[in-house]
């Protein structure tokens, strides 16, 4: 008989790992103990060698699905007595921090069954959870993940709950947020008075029934979720959706919907097994699904004109209770397999693009005039976390992230083990900001923080730096940032570098986009990088955005770029595609048409005049998309980033793939670089009356052109791998079409998957490049400021 000590790191706390260990030890007739500590879980087991080997092996293979083992170290230790069973010891504080809190999980089937069982003591209790489900990250202030360190600390467990919490065999053994109606958090309900002010509603009313009544009436209801508040309304009610949009400042962004189950979703969207798996995932992301032909008619105003619908399934017991109420409070869970008509718009309550509201008082105050009612509760949200958004990628088992937040953070993205292990903190870009902290061979990408033109988002970024470095106990050796001198993230990076006396490393925007994909695919060899996005600051100070790069670790070479397009009025041009349409006409030598084509634009004559002069230019792919949309007149102005390109994609989707009779592009050598000119495609499209055909043509011409361009570079560079990144790859027609076009040429295309392809993934790439800069000093030049 021998004894061994096992140290396990990763997501092993709050996921039922200790009860699992207990059961496993019991099954293998081993004695010893298990204990949580700051670095994860430590186990000592005593028994025969084969049983101990089996124990270590099954610890990995049979672990609870929401656990994630990063490392498992085994060492012999001194044998003790004859062993008296297996015990679960209290947590030990201190030590090196290697543990990670798990992400939030949706309610599990066992808890769902209890929730709808009238005989259960937690029947219709909105805070039911167990070690397999419930909140984690958003309620935890610090490690180790113990109740005292969460926002459940103020709720003392009743004897019944405490008994479950202490029984090693119980599903709720050490379920930190464990609660019941007699001891746990409670719901509250507020209704807007005539002046919009929130008034508490008498505790005798049922908050769930009341909220549903409001929703059915066409009201906007603020509902507290896991990582923040949602604004909800009846998605089938056109005037309710319209009201919500008007109150959210006439926002035009597509809204996400929540339905009870997959059966209810078929009405609106087509989906296969991959999509179903993504929807059912315990993280419960919003999944983008291709709409059915009549979806816009069924869900008026929810995502008008776009090809995609964002949908998710309920994840909190409270959300399930709303559907249960709508179904007439059926007993049991059979109703959950049947289509349910209730369809809710669920959009983040983040007025004016500021951080998601998490606090009750803040919700009551700031949603005044927006919400007609509030459904909230007294369990505090400590960490803000937006809903995640994913999209299935054809031919890939795991979907692609468009926004990585609730349900995933703080799960690490594993990096190549052999690569640099320097710990760095990257502060990302300007829009859709996220930050990334590395620890050994793991990259922790923060939840979505937001656009840094908002003061509150800037403060949230600072708070996220403190939270993540504190939680992971990492002291970064360097900071990484964008080259744009006026990003708040750049300034904060320089400030922190100064404060911590570590270097600040500037990483070019598109280099970082490509590197983010290399990081998650654990690739290191030189690759071709095709970065297509809006604008990013180039090493020459110009706005880049359609770049063909050769990326080799800390270095990159700009092999080619799109033909520069005149861009009048800086960021204004990016919001008004008609200006880019005019710019395209100028490029085609057809200035004279500008005033007639854009006769409705009061600024057309002035823009035409300015285009005769010396206008600044950009190589941005996004602006070429805008030019196409502007020429077609489908989206003269945008109310959110990428809107014009999304409309073009939606139109093209209706037509399907086109075959091109002849190429509609030119490749020229300009200053030693390959310049891709798409103006022939725009010339063609400018004469077309059918906008759907024109949109499809533009996509086909673009894919053809890019494949040609990249193919030529692959030939001359002798590189077969093409990494595609940047916000334009959110366009599925482009991503899919290019993948197959490159395959035809024998090239392999790598895409972003674990991190968003747009600026939400930028920090990961910055971190990757910065680590290589530290490894290869002298191989690169920091532009500095």
């Amino acid at each position, binding site marked *: 008989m021998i004894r061994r000590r096992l140290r396990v790191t990763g997501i092993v706390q709050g996921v039922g790992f200790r009860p699992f260990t207990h059961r496993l030890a019991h099954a293998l007739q081993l004695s010893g103990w298990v204990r949580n500590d700051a670095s994860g879980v430590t186990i000592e087991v005593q028994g025969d060698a084969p049983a101990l080997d089996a124990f270590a092996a099954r610890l990995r293979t049979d672990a609870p699905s929401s656990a994630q083992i990063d490392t498992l170290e085994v060492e012999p230790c001194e044998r003790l007595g004859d062993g008296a069973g297996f015990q679960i010891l209290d947590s030990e504080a201190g030590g090196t921090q290697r543990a990670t809190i798990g992400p939030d999980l949706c309610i599990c089937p066992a808890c769902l069954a209890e929730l709808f069982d009238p005989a259960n003591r937690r029947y219709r209790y909105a805070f039911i959870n167990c070690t397999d489900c419930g909140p984690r990250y958003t309620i935890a202030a610090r490690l180790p993940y113990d109740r005292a360190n969460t926002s459940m600390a103020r709720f003392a467990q009743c004897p019944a709950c405490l008994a479950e919490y202490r029984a090693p065999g119980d599903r709720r053994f050490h379920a930190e947020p464990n609660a019941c109606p007699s001891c746990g958090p409670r719901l509250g309900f507020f209704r807007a008075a005539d002046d919009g002010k929130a008034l508490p509603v008498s505790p005798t009313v049922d908050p769930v029934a009341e909220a549903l009544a409001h929703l059915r009436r066409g009201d906007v209801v603020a509902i507290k979720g896991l990582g923040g508040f949602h604004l909800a309304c009846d998605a089938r009610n056109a005037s309710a959706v319209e009201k919500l949009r008007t109150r959210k400042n006439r926002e035009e962004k597509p809204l996400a919907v929540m339905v009870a189950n997959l059966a209810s979703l078929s009405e609106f969207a087509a989906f296969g097994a991959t999509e179903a798996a993504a929807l059912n995932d315990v993280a419960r992301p919003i999944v983008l699904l291709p709409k059915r032909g009549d979806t816009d008619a069924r869900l008026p105003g929810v995502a008008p004109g776009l090809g995609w619908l964002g949908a998710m399934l309920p994840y909190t017991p409270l959300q399930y209770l709303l559907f249960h109420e709508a179904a007439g409070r059926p007993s049991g869970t059979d109703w959950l397999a049947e289509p349910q008509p209730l369809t809710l718009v669920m959009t983040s309550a983040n007025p*004016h693009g500021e951080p998601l509201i998490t606090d009750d008082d803040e919700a009551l105050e700031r949603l005044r005039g927006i919400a007609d009612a509030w459904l909230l509760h007294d369990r505090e949200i400590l960490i803000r976390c937006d809903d995640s958004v994913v999209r299935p990628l054809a031919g890939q088992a795991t979907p692609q992230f468009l926004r990585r937040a609730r349900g995933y953070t703080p799960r690490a993205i594993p990096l190549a083990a052999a690569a640099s292990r320097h710990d760095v903190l990257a502060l990302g870009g300007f829009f859709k900001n996220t930050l990334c902290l590395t620890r050994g061979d793991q990259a922790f990408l923060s939840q979505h923080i937001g656009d840094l033109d908002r003061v509150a988002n*800037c403060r949230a970024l600072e708070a996220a730096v403190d939270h993540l470095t504190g939680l992971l106990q990492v002291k970064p050796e360097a900071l990484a940032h964008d080259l*744009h001198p*006026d990003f708040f993230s750049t300034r904060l990076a320089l400030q922190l570098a100064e404060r911590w006396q570590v270097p600040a490393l500037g990483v070019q925007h598109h280099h970082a986009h490509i590197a983010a994909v290399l990081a998650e695919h654990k690739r290191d060899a030189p690759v071709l990088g095709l970065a297509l996005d809006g604008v990013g600051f180039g090493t020459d100070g110009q706005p880049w*955005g359609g770049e063909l790069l050769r990326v080799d670790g800390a270095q990159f070479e700009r092999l080619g770029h799109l033909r520069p397009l005149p861009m*009048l009025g*800086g960021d204004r041009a990016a919001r008004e595609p008609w200006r880019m349409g005019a710019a395209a006409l100028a490029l085609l030598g057809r200035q004279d048409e500008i005033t007639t084509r854009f006769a409705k634009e009061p600024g057309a004559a002035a823009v035409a005049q300015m285009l005769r*002069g010396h206008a600044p230019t950009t190589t941005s792919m996004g602006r070429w998309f805008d030019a196409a949309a502007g020429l077609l007149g489908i989206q003269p102005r945008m109310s959110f980033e990428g809107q014009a390109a999304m409309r073009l994609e939606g139109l093209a989707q209706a037509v399907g793939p086109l075959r091109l009779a002849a190429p509609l592009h030119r490749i020229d050598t300009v200053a030693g670089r390959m310049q891709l000119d798409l103006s022939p495609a725009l010339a063609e499209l400018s004469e077309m009356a059918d906008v759907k055909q024109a949109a499809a043509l533009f996509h086909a011409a673009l894919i053809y052109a890019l494949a040609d361009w990249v193919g030529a570079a692959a030939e001359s560079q002798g590189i077969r791998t093409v990494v595609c990144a940047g916000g334009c790859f959110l366009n599925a027609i482009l991503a899919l079409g290019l993948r197959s076009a490159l395959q035809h040429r024998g090239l392999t295309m790598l895409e972003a998957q674990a991190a968003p392809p747009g600026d939400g993934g930028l920090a990961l790439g910055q971190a990757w490049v910065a680590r290589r800069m530290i490894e290869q000093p002298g191989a690169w030049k920091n532009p500095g400021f």
Partner: protein
Amino acid sequence: LSHGSGGRAMAQLIHDLFVRHFDNDYLRAQNDGACFPLPAGTGRMVMATDSHVVSPLFFPGGDIGCLSVHGTINDVAMAGGKPLYLAAGFILEEGFPLADLQRIVVSMAEAAREADVPIVTGDTKVVEQGKGDGVFITTTGIGVVPDGILLDPRRIQPGDRILVSGYLGDHGVAIMSLRENLSFDTAIKSDTAAIHGLAADMLAAVPGLRALRDPTRGGLAAVLNEFASAAGCGIVIREKAVPVRDEVAAACELLGLDPLYVANEGKLVAVCPAEDAEHLLDVMRSHPQGRDAAIIGEAIVDPNGFVQMETTFGGRRMVDWLTGEQLPRIC
């Protein structure tokens, strides 16, 4: 204009031009420097200098000549000083039309006379063609600061009010429109003006004024960020309260400029204790150059020193300082 062998004669010609138009005893004395008495009983002196390069040289509402006089007078005034005398240095490019020079000199002379601040000494150099951009003018001003006046942005306290003296963005937009060859229904004119009279009235009424500054290059945003970082507090302004002419706002839209970052040449930004704000506003409004003055915001407690703006749609936008031009950020 030419330089070299014939340069001496030319320099004499220019010198005569100046003497004739600027016309004062100091210049007539023909000395290399001007010797002047100090007003009796004044505590401190203030001196400011500014080099003026502007393209185009002539623009609606003014030209480089009057701009160079106004700019320096305003710099003296923003330090709390009563401007007394000016000096002017010219760098002319060979081949610069004499007629243009004459026009500029006349304009300078008029501006100086109107402001009642004589140009008492000067210098001219002519450089080879291609080594200058037509004409550069450096002006230096000297003035006296009355006792009891202490303008220093480090004195700004949370709660203090921020005021501006009128419509913002006129100068920058007039210049940009001209460069882009744009014309608008309502002509946008530069606001270039000497505002020492307004500043003097304000200081007389509210001697406890914390800070004054003219929002020239970098506009209001640059000034507010300078204030915030000097004072170690935050500033919040309200978009609705910031005076911007409709036509300037429209031109900014077209040009993609943010009026907060556009240069002004005849406006000031003032910070005063909250209790003095209304009185100061009244005083400003009763001066012709402060007719459209407004209280636009206040200093707040914020260790970050952020400058933020409550937008018309709600929410708070960051009003960051910029490294250089307004660079595109949308990705």
